[in-house]
C-alpha cells in the first residue's frame, strides 16, 4: 500500500518535471514580449525602459539558462516573480488556490454524489420513467456548453430571481467572520460549483448506471441471490461497490477537465481562483504566472489522480495486496 503510493509519487514527480520543461518550451515559443506589454500599458516608453524591464524579467539571459534557472527554482518551490503584479508568483497562486480548490472540490463532490446517486437510481429502476428522466437529464447536461449554462444560471438565479449572488467569492466589505463568512461564501459558491459540477455529474451518472447494469449481469451477483440476500443488500454491497471502480477511474481521468472547466466558470462568475489568474496571465503574457499556474494545476491534477488511486486501492484489494 505504502509502496504503491510511493511508486505513484515518484511517477507524479517525473511527470511534473516533464511538464515543467514542456511548459517552459511551449510558452517561450509564443510571440509577444512581456516587456513590450508592460511598457505599452505604462502609456509610453523608450529603449532604456524596455531594456530595464527585459533585464528584470531575465529575458536577456540565454534560453538554456532561463530554463535551468526555472527548473531549479521551481524545484525549490520558487515559481518566480511576477513583475507585472509585483509579487512572487507563489504568493499570487497561494492567494488564489484556496478559492479554486474550494470550487473544484465542491463541484467534484456535488458531481460525484449526485451523479452516483442518480446513476444508482436510474439503474435500479431501469426501463421506468425514472430511468428515462434521469438519463435524459444527464444527456442534456452532457451536451450543454458549460459557459452557457453559467451565463443562463447567473441570469436566472441572480438577476431575474435574485436568489443567489451572481458573482464573486464573498460579499465585499461585509467583513463577516466565522460562521457568517462561511455561510456567505457558501452562498456565492452555489452557482459556480453547481454549473461546473453539472457536466461531470452527467458523466458520472452515465458511468454509474452503465457500470451497475454491467455488474448486475456478473456471476457473483447470481451467487448473492442464491444465498437468499435481499435485492437491496445485493445492489449496495455487491453491485454498487464493484460498479464504483470504473467510476473512480473515470473521476481520476477527468480531474484535468475539472481544473480546465474552472477557467471558464471562474471567468464568468468572477471567482478569484487560479483559473482566472491563468486566463489573465495568458492575455498579458505574464510568463512566470502562466508557468506557475500551469505547474500548480498539473500538480493539482496529479493530486486528484493520487486521491483516486488511493480510493481505488482502498476499494479494490486486488491492487492493495499484490
Amino acid at each position, binding site marked *: 500500500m505504502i509502496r504503491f503510493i510511493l511508486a505513484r509519487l515518484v511517477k507524479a514527480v517525473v511527470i511534473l518535471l516533464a511538464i515543467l520543461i514542456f511548459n517552459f518550451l511551449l510558452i517561450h515559443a509564443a510571440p509577444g514580449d512581456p516587456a513590450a506589454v508592460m511598457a505599452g500599458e505604462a502609456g509610453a516608453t523608450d529603449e532604456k525602459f524596455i531594456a530595464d524591464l527585459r533585464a528584470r524579467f531575465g529575458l536577456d539571459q540565454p534560453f538554456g539558462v532561463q530554463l535551468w534557472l526555472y527548473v531549479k527554482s521551481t524545484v525549490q518551490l520558487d515559481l518566480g516573480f511576477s513583475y507585472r503584479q509585483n509579487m512572487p508568483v507563489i504568493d499570487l497562486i497561494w492567494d488564489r488556490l484556496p478559492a479554486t480548490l474550494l470550487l473544484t472540490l465542491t463541484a467534484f463532490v456535488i458531481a460525484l454524489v449526485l451523479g452516483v446517486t442518480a446513476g444508482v437510481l436510474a439503474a435500479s429502476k431501469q426501463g421506468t420513467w425514472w430511468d428515462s428522466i434521469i438519463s435524459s437529464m444527464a444527456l442534456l447536461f452532457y451536451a450543454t456548453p458549460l459557459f452557457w449554462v453559467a451565463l443562463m444560471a447567473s441570469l436566472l438565479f441572480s438577476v431575474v430571481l435574485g436568489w443567489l449572488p451572481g458573482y464573486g467569492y464573498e460579499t465585499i466589505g461585509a467583513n463577516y467572520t466565522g460562521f457568517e463568512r462561511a455561510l456567505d461564501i457558501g452562498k456565492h459558491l452555489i452557482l459556480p460549483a453547481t454549473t461546473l459540477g453539472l457536466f461531470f455529474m452527467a458523466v458520472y451518472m452515465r458511468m454509474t448506471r452503465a457500470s451497475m447494469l454491467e455488474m448486475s449481469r456478473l456471476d457473483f451477483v447470481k451467487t448473492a441471490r442464491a444465498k437468499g440476500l*435481499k435485492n437491496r443488500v445485493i445492489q449496495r454491497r455487491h453491485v454498487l461497490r464493484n460498479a464504483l471502480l470504473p467510476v473512480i477511474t473515470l473521476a481520476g481521468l477527468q480531474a484535468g477537465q475539472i481544473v480546465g472547466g474552472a477557467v471558464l466558470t471562474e471567468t464568468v462568475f468572477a471567482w478569484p481562483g487560479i483559473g482566472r489568474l491563468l486566463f489573465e496571465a495568458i492575455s498579458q503574457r505574464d510568463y512566470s504566472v502562466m508557468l506557475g499556474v500551469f505547474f500548480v494545476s498539473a500538480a493539482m491534477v496529479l493530486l486528484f489522480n493520487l486521491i483516486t488511486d488511493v480510493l481505488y486501492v482502498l476499494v479494490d484489494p486486488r491492487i492493495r495486496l499484490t
Partner: protein
Amino acid sequence: MSLLEIENLAIALPAGADRQLAVENISFGLSKGEILCIVGESGSGKSMSANAVMGLLPEGVEPAGGHIRFHGREILHLTEDERIDIRGKSISMIFQEPLSALNPLMRVGAQICEVFEAHGLLTPAERMARAVELLEEVGLPDPDKTIRAYPFQLSGGQRQRVMIAMALALEPEILIADEPTTALDVTTQAQILALIEELRRKHEMAVIFITHDFGVVADIADRVIVMQTGQIVEQGSAEDVLLRPSHPYTKSLIAAIPGMKDKPDTGQTHSQQSPVILSVKNLNKTFSTGGGLFKPARVVHAVNDMTFDLHLGETIGIVGESGSGKSTAGRCIIRLIDPDSGTVRLSDVDLTALNGHALRMARSKAQMIFQDPYSSLNPRARIGRILTEGPIAHGVPRAQALDRARELLSLVGLDPSAVDRFPHEFSGGQRQRIGIARALALDPDVIIADEAVSALDVSIQAQVLDLLADLKARLNLSMLFVTHDLRVAAQICDRIMVMRRGQVVEMGPSAQVLGQPAHDYTRSLLDAIPGRHHEAAMRQSVASY
C-alpha cells in the same frame, strides 16, 4: 414422495432466440441424499431446470408451464420474498467459474457470513466461528487465515471449496452444482468430486450435478438424465444409462469419450526410425511479473531446459495441468514467444537465430492450430482471405492460393463455397476445421496443436480428432499436440511428454507413459481422470450394440 419433483416443466426463451423453448416436457424427481447428474452438450438446456428451481433464470427467460414441487409445495411461481427464504437455506447452488462467482472486493469470510445474515441467523461473532468451521470442513488449509483472504488470493480449487462452504452453511437439503469442476484441473476436479461425495454422505444432502462429462457422471452419479436440445432423451440409474444406454444419442456420447487404449502401439517404432524434423535443445523461458521500483519482480520458470526431437510423421503430446508451461513451450518453439535460451532447429534452420523477414519466411514450415475456435479466426475476414493470406504473403498468386483454399476446405470436410463466408456463419467444430485448413495452407513440416479440441463438445471433439488422425496419416504430418487431457493425448500421440511447473517430468512412448508411468505426478494425473474405473465397462457396453 420425492424431495423435489419436476413435472412437465417448460421454459420459454425470449423472442428472437434460436428456439422457442429452452426446455420442455421435463419431468424428474429427486430423493433425499441422491446425486442426480444432468448430462448434455452445450445448448442442451441442462442448466435451465436447475436455475428454475432456484428462481434464478436469466433475464427474459420465463417458465412457460409445468410444476416444480419442493416437499410437495409448488415453488415455480413464488414471490421474491418467498424465494429468498428458500435460497441458500433449503436449496443452494455452486457455479462453474468460482473466480467470477465470488465478489472480488469482499473477504471470503464475509461472503460466507452473508448467508447467515441473509436469513437473520446467529450473531456476527458466531457467524465468523461457523465460517471457520465450514472452511475446515471443506478442507481448506489454515481456515483462520483463509477466512480473511480475498478470492483472488486463492487457487481455483480453493475458491470452489469456498463456494461449497458457502452453499453448505445452512445445511440445505439440496445442492445444485452447475458444472462445478469444468474450469478446474483434473487432479483438483477429482478432489472436489470426492468432497461433494463425502459431504453428501455426511449431510444426507441431495445433489443435482450438471455436467457435460460422462467420466464425471460415471464417478459420482446415482441417477442420470441425458438431455438433448431441451428434451430429456433418457433417464435412469447410473448403471442403466452408462452400461445399457438405450437412446442412440446417449450411445453416441459415450462412444465419443476419448479412450485410453485406442492408440495402437505400432506407430512408435515406425516414426522413431524416420529423420528428425524438429529438434529442441535446452529451451528456457522465464517470466517476471509485477516488477517495479519498490517491488521485487516475481519470476516464473515457465519452460525449464526442455530438450527433445520430433521425427517425421510422429506426434508428440505435451501434457500438463494449467500453469505447467506446456503452451509456453509450444509458442517458444514457434517463436511466438522469444525463448531466453536454447535452440530450435526446424529441418536445418535454427529458428532461434532468425529475425524479421527471414523468421517470417522460415516459420511457414511450422504452423499452429489454436484452442478457441471463436478467437482464432478474424471475425471481419472471409474464409477465403483467412486461408490465402499466408500463401500470398509467401508469394503465391492470389488465384492459385484461392484454388488451394478450396481444396483444403474439401480436405477438412467443408464445402469449398465456404471461401465466401464469414467465420460467424460456422459452428465451433466447423471453425476448428477451418483453423486446421489454415495451418495446412502453407504446407508445413510441423504442426503445433495447442489444446486444439479442448473447447469443443465431446462429440465434435471426437470428429476433429478423427480428422487430425486422418490428415496425419494421409499427409505424413509431424505434430506437437499440446493438451491438458491425457485421454485425448492417448488417442493421437506416439509419444507423450508430461510437464509440471516448467519441467518435463516424464517422456516416453504413449503406451508406456500411460500404462506404466514412471513418475508419481503422471500417476496422480492418471488416477484423477474421471470415470477411469468405469471406462472399460462403458466402452464395452457401447461396442456390444
